[in-house]
């Protein structure tokens, strides 16, 4: 085990300890005076990691595997075929999710935390699947895919993402498609498990009323049986693809059973800088820039809202895929501005005019300063629950960062940084407009 590193942020009244075990597992422990304990294992394997052991896995394999990791051999566990049974016996809640670049398993409880921790670690260290259970799971996942396919907001923003990135794997659905999941077999799941579920590709984060030494002793005992596997070649699919700065398609539209048109304006931003610190600063500058431009307190939203061009609730988001694990040629990032309106093209025209105005007159300084406050407050609020703390610490650690450095980085974000990013990202060739129109409009 490496020497424990104690990270502290005194004025925020927060601290956590970080160690790496001999098997490669990284462990973050954050004592917190709460009734709720939360633990999460983050595996560096997401929907974009399609290449393992010399071949390309079907789309949706990481997500399918996430569903099957809860299963276990009933012969070894007194007839119980699911790790959920152990969590249920403690009254704990457990769940998991898959994103583009990771799979996260977690549980929360108020009692028997050590038992839950052992179960969590046991769950991510072994795979048990049968053809029957895989076939049954296919039906469940098919319904999850249909559920997502029926969500018009999800479709609108997925179409914007697809339109921005020509062949990049970020355009693929995390759950896969109804046809791709037909190609996922027990053997495929085994290959994916062997390639990616390695202790040195996992981070365990714990938060709650815990003693660091006691947690470490439970974890060390639980991982004693972990197999340190030979590394396999892994990566994301289509390794020769490079991310071009231009949007792949400038406009897409489709028809669905919606009451009013939905729009999603995608803005691709190019050239994520090299190096973790620089990337982090860029990510936070993106945050501040989005808030400066698209906040409900800003001119763009209030003008559209007051002219009745958009319904209340227009929102923005951004996704940055630039973790150190990702090959440089695959780094990507984009903003997404979504809402409901009568005329998406009119909103797009207003967006273009707004960008032009900012290009000429500069970012409003007051809005920039206010945006920094909002991003700051949003970050501080994350430290209110054990679940959010564990998720935050784990996510920053996966990118090789300590969350508490946020404040120094934020202090150093200047008006000039935001202006430079604005000029890089807001170029006509880098936009796309995705539109969902009511089916009646097709008639």
């Amino acid at each position, binding site marked *: 085990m490496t020497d424990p590193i104690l990270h502290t942020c005194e004025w925020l009244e927060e601290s956590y300890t970080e160690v790496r075990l001999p098997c490669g597992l990284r462990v973050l422990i954050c004592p917190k005076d709460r009734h709720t304990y939360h633990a999460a294992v983050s595996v560096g394997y997401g929907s974009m990691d399609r290449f393992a052991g010399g071949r390309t896995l079907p789309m949706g394999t990481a997500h399918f595997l996430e569903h099957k990791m809860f299963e276990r051999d009933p012969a070894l566990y007194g007839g119980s075929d699911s790790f959920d049974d152990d969590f249920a016996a403690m009254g704990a809640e457990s769940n998991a999710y898959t994103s583009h670049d990771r799979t996260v398993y977690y549980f929360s409880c108020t009692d028997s935390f050590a038992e839950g921790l052992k179960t969590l670690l046991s769950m991510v260290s072994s795979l048990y699947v049968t053809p029957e259970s895989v076939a049954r799971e296919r039906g*469940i996942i098919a319904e999850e895919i249909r559920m997502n396919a029926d969500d018009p907001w999800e479709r609108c923003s997925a179409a914007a993402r697809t339109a921005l990135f020509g062949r990049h794997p970020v355009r693929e659905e995390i759950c896969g*498609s109804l046809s791709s999941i037909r190609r996922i077999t027990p053997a495929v799941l085994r290959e994916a498990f062997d390639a990616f579920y390695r202790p040195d590709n996992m981070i365990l984060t714990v938060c709650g009323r815990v003693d660091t030494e006691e947690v470490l002793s439970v974890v060390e005992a639980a991982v004693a049986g972990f197999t340190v596997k030979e590394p396999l070649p892994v990566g994301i699919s289509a390794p020769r693809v490079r991310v071009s700065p231009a949007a792949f398609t400038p406009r897409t539209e489709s028809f669905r059973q919606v009451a009013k048109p939905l729009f999603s304006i995608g803005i691709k931003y190019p050239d994520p800088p090299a190096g973790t610190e620089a990337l982090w600063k860029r990510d936070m500058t993106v945050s501040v820039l989005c808030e400066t431009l698209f906040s409900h307190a800003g001119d763009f939203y209030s003008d559209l809202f007051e002219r009745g061009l958009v319904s209340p609730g227009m929102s923005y988001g951004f996704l940055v895929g630039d973790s150190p694990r990702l090959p440089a040629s695959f780094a990507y990032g984009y903003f997404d501005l979504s809402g409901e309106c009568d005329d998406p093209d009119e909103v797009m025209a207003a967006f273009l005019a707004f960008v032009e105005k900012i290009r000429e007159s500069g970012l409003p300084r007051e809005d920039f300063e206010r945006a920094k406050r909002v991003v700051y407050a949003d970050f501080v609020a994350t430290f209110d629950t054990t679940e959010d703390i564990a998720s935050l610490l784990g996510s920053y650690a996966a990118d090789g960062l300590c969350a508490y450095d946020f404040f120094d980085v934020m202090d150093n974000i200047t008006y000039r940084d935001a202006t430079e990013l604005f000029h890089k990202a807001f170029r006509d060739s880098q936009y796309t407009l995705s539109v969902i129109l009511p089916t009646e409009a097709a008639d």
Partner: protein
Amino acid sequence: MTETTRTLNPAATLRHTRDGRFKTARLSLFTVMPAHPDGSPLTTLLFGIYRRGSEHYPRLALLNRRLDELYGTTLTIRNYLHGDSHVVVYTAEMPEQAFLPPADSHMDILGGVMELLADMILRPLRDGDGCLRRAAVEAEKTALCDSLRSLRNDTRAYAGNRLREIMCAGEPYGLSIGGTVEQVEAMTVHEVTNHHKALLNATRMEVFYTGRASAETVAAAWDKAFGGWNPILIQTPPTLPHKPPVTPRAHTEDMEVSQGKLCMGWSCGENFTTLRDRPDELAAYTVCNELFGVMQSSRLFRHVREERGLCYFCDSALDMTKGILWVSCGISPESRAEAETAIRAELTTIQEGNITPEEVELAKLSLRNAYRQMGDSQSSLEVFALNRMLGGTHDTPEAELSRIMAVTPADVARVAKTFVPDTVFFLNGTARGEGEEDYDD
């Protein structure tokens, strides 16, 4: 953590919890009134108008800028039915002063938030003739109509809502609190202005604060902002249990989506009001619902989702304001009959007493976890306290939990038997999803 209550004015009560564990403080203003087919849509509209601007912040942007200046304080609105009562809530979440950068640590965020809320509610935008500003009323009417039309964009919520409306038609609980598009379009500025005046004259407001400020500080901030306001208290009559129909009903509606949504409702003829003196029975209903369709290893999860692979989600919810058990499930349209039969079968086995002590124990453990976690969530404690007040009970979370832990399998079977089939609503998906044919091959 200390809790105190104090009267702010004849219609407003402060429920103050001093808790220094959080980085953010939370202030919620709950307005509670009887749900009414005409009044509730007007109230819904009115609270949207308030959010558009006020005397001191006459544009939405100025109001939002003020919130941002108050260190990114968020202001959210919730609008819902609690049994036969209509509840509208403004919640402000603000960073605690201790965690502001040193240069801003003097800011009186709570005072600023209270002043902003008072300005929105007591001094909304007006025209010269004293009516609420016509432009704001018309814009909000359009927004409300759009949101009513857009309910179907979320098929799960839409189907659940339709079931409630059909099942409880004729009761306040069956109302659409936003009204209908036709109703909203017909509202006049005079009606809305009169409704605003009526609300200022007579209301019921429950003010919840959780954070580091003392009760005296919160009350002083209230007095400074709302001090001259002295409405009379409006009474909300107790909610009656829903009465099931003579014969169960079934409704189907087509929609061009790929997944069907099956929503089922049962009623038991009891609710918070009738069970006020029998809290042990209420605990048994809670355990029954937990093992039927809430906990991780619930009957519905294990037998409908995991064993049959019919759906991604299938779960139940218990609304004891009306004594209704809901089930919601997303399925392929062709699986409707199988799913409906399987769901009914699970409830029937519970009603027949085929329940193991182990599964009751698991349900109790799951509930124990949820009750204990409540102490870590400002919003959960707030909702618990409000429900307790509106339900007329005085139990603490700990007291409720101890009742739950005493529930037996026989108790669960007994209360399960009181559920009678009421209404089924099926949203029939008529579109084939992308890649469907490949999957069916």
